[in-house]
């Protein structure tokens, strides 16, 4: 499947881009992370500590174990610091 992957804050900075289109057969969000980490060193570095990573599937905050079936947009980012 084809999904849009978005990165925010220091994840965006470490990976060096804010958005990319990815072809993947990953079943869950963590599976997608594993694929990304295997790609290139900058992805491995960005996703080194999963305790500091949050994810949204189709703009809804979700646990990392969430299935990707039907997802069109997956976003990764550090814990939010609004307000």
């Amino acid at each position: 499947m084809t999904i849009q992957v978005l990165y925010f804050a220091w994840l965006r900075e470490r990976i060096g881009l804010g958005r990319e289109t990815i072809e993947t057969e990953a079943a869950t969000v963590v599976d997608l992370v594993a694929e990304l980490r295997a790609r290139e060193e900058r992805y491995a570095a960005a996703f080194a500590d999963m305790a500091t990573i949050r994810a949204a599937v189709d703009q809804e905050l979700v646990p990392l174990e969430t299935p990707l079936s039907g997802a069109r947009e997956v976003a990764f980012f550090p814990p939010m610091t609004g307000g």
Partner: protein
Amino acid sequence: MSAVPIRVVVSDAPFDLGAEAAALEAGPETGAVVTFTGRVRDVAGGLRWMEIEHYPGMTERALEGIAREATDRWPLSGVTVIHRHGRLAPGDRIMMVATASRHREAAFEAAAFLMDYLKSRAPFWKKEVTEDGAEWVAAAEKDEAALGRWDS
């Protein structure tokens, strides 16, 4: 579904706290309006500016969801949530929430609830730029912990 008016604004522009509060007061049932305003602090004196990144699309959805949840939990007559993004100077306002109700307890509790959720569940990230460089603000564990009190 709740028919309570909800106003969500995500923008790089300043907002007018007085006008926002006055707009929420409309209607004979509103006896109490509570506002919270957050602002760029410069405690150490070295902050040049703050940069606020957000996730367009999800931000509006998250804020509307939080506001709707507040109207489900408390008898409110209106909710306003405004959050800025982009570059903000020390002293600039970052965001505000405002709640209107017949009674003060509901207005106070709903405003505190909105703030707790907004801190940890709305997709905003702050970066502080000082003379020494730029640093992303770390999430405070107490902010995540603060959400626990709304579980019941």
